């Protein structure tokens, strides 16, 4: 008869969680993706920097012909495509975390994340199309080797 006086357990958190649990494993997969893509990106991005900035004349050698030369090889097309997609998704998820942490109002968070997802998707589409629709001989006067045949 004395137990009725017990206070209720402290169930209210210090601040309301901004990311509500939906019962899905989305956050777990996002967390895992950051680690897996991160490790792959360490290799891809450092390789990219080495080949483009350290080898030969580095940044001085980068021009349209340099890109044409690289993308003549399917290896570099796949390499750059993989790096584009992984880096964009990794970065988008990173910014999503930052927005969730610092934007206090529900509305602000929603619109920032909407802007993030739409702009990131646009960049991924533009980047993918750039790799696959690249035409080394876009200039009919081109003096590049690949454009000399025929």
């Amino acid at each position: 008869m004395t137990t009725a006086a017990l206070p209720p357990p402290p169930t209210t958190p210090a601040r309301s969680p901004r990311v509500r649990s939906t019962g899905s494993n989305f956050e777990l997969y996002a967390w895992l993706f950051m680690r897996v893509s991160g490790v792959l990106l360490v290799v891809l991005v450092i390789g990219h920097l080495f080949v483009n900035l350290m080898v030969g004349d580095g940044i001085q050698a980068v021009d349209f012909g340099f890109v044409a030369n690289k993308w003549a090889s399917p290896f570099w097309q796949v390499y750059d495509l993989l790096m584009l997609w992984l880096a964009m998704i990794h970065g988008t998820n990173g910014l999503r975390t930052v927005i969730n942490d610092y934007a206090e109002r529900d509305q602000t968070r929603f619109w920032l994340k909407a802007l993030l997802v739409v702009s990131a998707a646009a960049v991924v589409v533009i980047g993918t199309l750039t790799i696959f629709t690249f035409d080394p001989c876009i200039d009919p006067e081109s003096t590049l080797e690949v454009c000399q045949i025929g």
Partner: protein
Amino acid sequence: MWSWVAHRVTGVLLFFFLYVHVLDTALVRVSPEAYNTVIATYKNPIVGLLEVGLVGAVLFHAFNGVRVVLIDFWSKGPRVHRQMLWTVLVLWVLLMLPFTIRHLANVFGE
């Protein structure tokens, strides 16, 4: 704590640079001249110095990211997180030295 802050700051900066970099590369679909004109800004001495900062941000984010992975997945990771932070910083200096020398020679050479 500061490594966490630095990881965030470099991550956000790299993400915004990535937007710019994908879009400047997309100029190869416009014309060789458009692409070459914009890429010429990367060879400008001031931008060349900023690139050292960019690569510095990439390398810190990369090595510290591997440290985070090791803390999460390696059973000894949490115990040696501090030593791993020193390893990150030493590796960073070891790679930044040759890169900075080579890159600045390319930017300022000729």
